[in-house]
């Protein structure tokens, strides 16, 4: 039994922590957030140079060979730094599909430049009607000789406005909600028939509504076999769920630390407000929520790494816990900061907004609890 990180993971953790402390302050983050791209291309280049974009890819694919624990290490620290660069869209989502389903040509065209930080990519896993069911795909792809015609709508496409490559799940057979009949296509961001409406999200990131109106792509843009794309899609979403959960736990820890610090320094009635028991117990509950979530994350990362039958349960349990505990910690952090907690200028509000956004993606707490209530039935 060993809960410690190995040497490689410790080095990775250390390099990210150092970067955030020395080069990633809140003001710079806010400036990038308000820019047209929604992130800093220079910072992204640095991520690639430091090898962070290579973490979850095999050595054969030019990666670092990392597993779920390595992803947890990266994302927890990105959470602590409130990092805004599109790691989730590029590395976890698009990369998650490409590493599993792309052929060698596609890997050298798309995955290699993605790892090098030279290509921006994303996965369009949401449709306007789908909520959290990633198999609820209405977008269709119709074959015509050696070309495919794709028509449909995609919602909340992270990094959609700057993506050079969009991976589009489309239905080539079956009905919305069925796993079979889903195919994946890699399309360029500037192809004819594609319209992208880029917008800012409440957590300071950027996403897009995407309409595909008879977009035509050649057969070599099909990723994986016809009708067989669901497994890779589902696996990438599972990766992303673990990733944002780890990010949320990093955020929860920061919020708890900042709240304790604030209550110790804020004087009312002639004493620091941290001396009030009503507030002390609430901070203890925040701390407990963080530690219990961290314990669950460690279990989940190990369960997924071992690839056993518990993996699916682990993902649902973790995202449920993070949704429930994250909402609690975020709201309490704001409340205990009083008026300061509801101002734009204080970072606490922005950590809170990101936590809130994380609960709303890849299934909220209720959605995952419903899955558990069904999955765990024996």
């Amino acid at each position, binding site marked *: 039994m060993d*809960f410690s990180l190995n040497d490689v993971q410790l080095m990775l953790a250390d390099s990210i922590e150092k970067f955030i402390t020395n080069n990633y302050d809140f003001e710079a983050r806010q400036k990038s957030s308000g820019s047209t791209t929604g992130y800093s291309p220079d910072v992204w280049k640095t991520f690639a140079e430091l090898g962070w974009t290579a973490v979850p890819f095999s050595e054969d694919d030019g990666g670092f060979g990392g597993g779920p624990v390595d992803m947890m290490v990266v994302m927890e620290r990105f959470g602590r730094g409130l990092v805004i660069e599109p790691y989730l869209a590029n590395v976890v989502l698009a990369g998650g599909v490409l590493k599993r389903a792309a052929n060698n040509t596609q890997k050298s065209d798309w995955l290699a430049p993605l790892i090098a930080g030279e290509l921006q990519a994303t996965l369009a896993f949401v449709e306007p009607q789908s909520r959290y069911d990633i198999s609820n795909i209405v977008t269709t792809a119709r074959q015509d000789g050696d070309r495919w015609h794709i028509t449909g709508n995609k919602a909340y496409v992270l990094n959609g406005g700057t993506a050079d490559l969009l991976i589009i799940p489309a239905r080539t057979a079956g009905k919305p909600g069925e796993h079979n009949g889903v195919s994946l296509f890699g399309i360029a961001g500037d192809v004819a028939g594609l319209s992208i409406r880029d917008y800012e999200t409440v957590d300071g990131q950027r996403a897009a509504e995407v309409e595909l109106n008879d977009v035509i792509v050649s057969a070599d843009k099909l990723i994986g076999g016809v009708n067989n794309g669901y497994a890779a899609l589902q696996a990438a979403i599972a990766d992303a769920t673990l990733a944002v959960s780890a990010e949320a736990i990093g955020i929860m820890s920061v919020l708890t630390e900042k709240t304790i610090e604030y209550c110790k320094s804020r004087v009312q009635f002639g004493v620091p407000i941290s001396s009030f028991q009503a507030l002390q117990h609430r901070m203890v509950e925040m701390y407990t929520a963080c530690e219990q979530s961290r314990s669950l994350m460690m279990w989940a990362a190990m369960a997924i790494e071992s690839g056993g039958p518990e993996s699916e349960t682990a993902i649902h349990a973790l995202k449920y816990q993070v949704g429930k505990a994250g909402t609690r910690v975020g709201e309490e952090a704001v409340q205990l900061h009083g008026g300061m907690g509801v101002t734009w200028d204080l970072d606490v509000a922005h950590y809170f907004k990101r936590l809130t956004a994380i609960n709303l993606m890849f299934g909220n707490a209720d959605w995952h609890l419903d899955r558990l209530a069904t999955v765990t039935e024996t």
Partner: protein
Amino acid sequence: MNVTFSAGDLAFREEVRQFFATEFPGDILEKQRKAVPLTRDDVVRWHKKMYEKGWAAPNWPQELGGTGWSAVQKYIFADEQARVNAPPFLSFGVSMVGPIIYTYGSEAQKQRFLPEILQFNQWWCQGYSEPGAGSDLASLRTRADLDGDHYRVNGTKTWTTLGQFADWIFCLVRTNTDVSRRQEGISFLLIDMKQPGVSVKPIVLLDGEHEVNEVHFEDVKVPLENLVGEEGKGWTYGKVLLQHERTGIAGVAGSKYRLAQLKARAAQSIRGALPLANDQTFMRKIAAAEVELKALEYTELRTLASVASGKAPGPESSILKIAGTELRQTIDSLRMEASAYYALPYVRDQYTMDFPEDDRIGDGTETHAALTYFNDRKVSIFGGSNEIQKNIIAKHVLGL
């Protein structure tokens, strides 16, 4: 990072499983299965069995009779013990006063008491709380006045669990009232209960059981050699003891099997009716409890791993007490909810060995669900109430 069991751990698990299947007294497991209360003799008998096996003290140093188990082995043992619903160790001797004696006691005390505790020749109980000193333990008023070669003890201790069976009681008593801080002037005394001036009065709890007592001391003579450590340092020793108490208090293994049993029962159809497992609202509560349980289990494993690497269980073990007792109460509520009307009968005489199981009202032991729910209200109160645990975390972990 990994929590996989080694081949040695798996062999150990097999050994423990074999022990409970073949060596542990079968009649006691049968009583547990039928929810028949254990007698004093039963409790002594199975503890002696553990001693014969060399497994009486998983947490003691090996040279004193401890098992020398790794953190993983302790975890495996607790898990197997709970899996067959074997009773948990009585904590007062082996988990509580034992470590205090081997850490702070004199050589003579170690030689006199440790073997007796290990062999369960003495039944120990705890004398901390008083009618006027609960959460505010430092306000305790039981006095021990120096009188030649002994102390003369006067006062009242309360909530003394199974004191009606006990031979010895370890007490926090006031040896000095002229102190600047109330935590000073408190001493740790070992008191023989089989002597004039000690009287034990039952307190019946809300489930009708006699589990706790009030213990009165009237001019009880305690030899000076029964003082543990230094006079006036009892508070410090007592605090260390409370931390020992809190680590075991999470009750992960017990909760795991109670929850698994509840799930299995929810999946059963009673007389052709739809199983409770078809009720999504109920199953969501079960699922939420399972997530709590997994988080608690891994928090405990993290604590065990940290203890194994040489650190003492710190104040963060308070999390385990809070989360563990809250979960236990949640599971109790769900069991009661699952029993519905059959949680209501209060028919204690059917829980005896010779009462035919088929004649019980309700289906087997489920009529116990409400009684367990009522009895377990105690768990968030004892061992330092959960509110006191939060004060401890606030002060010692968060630095508030």
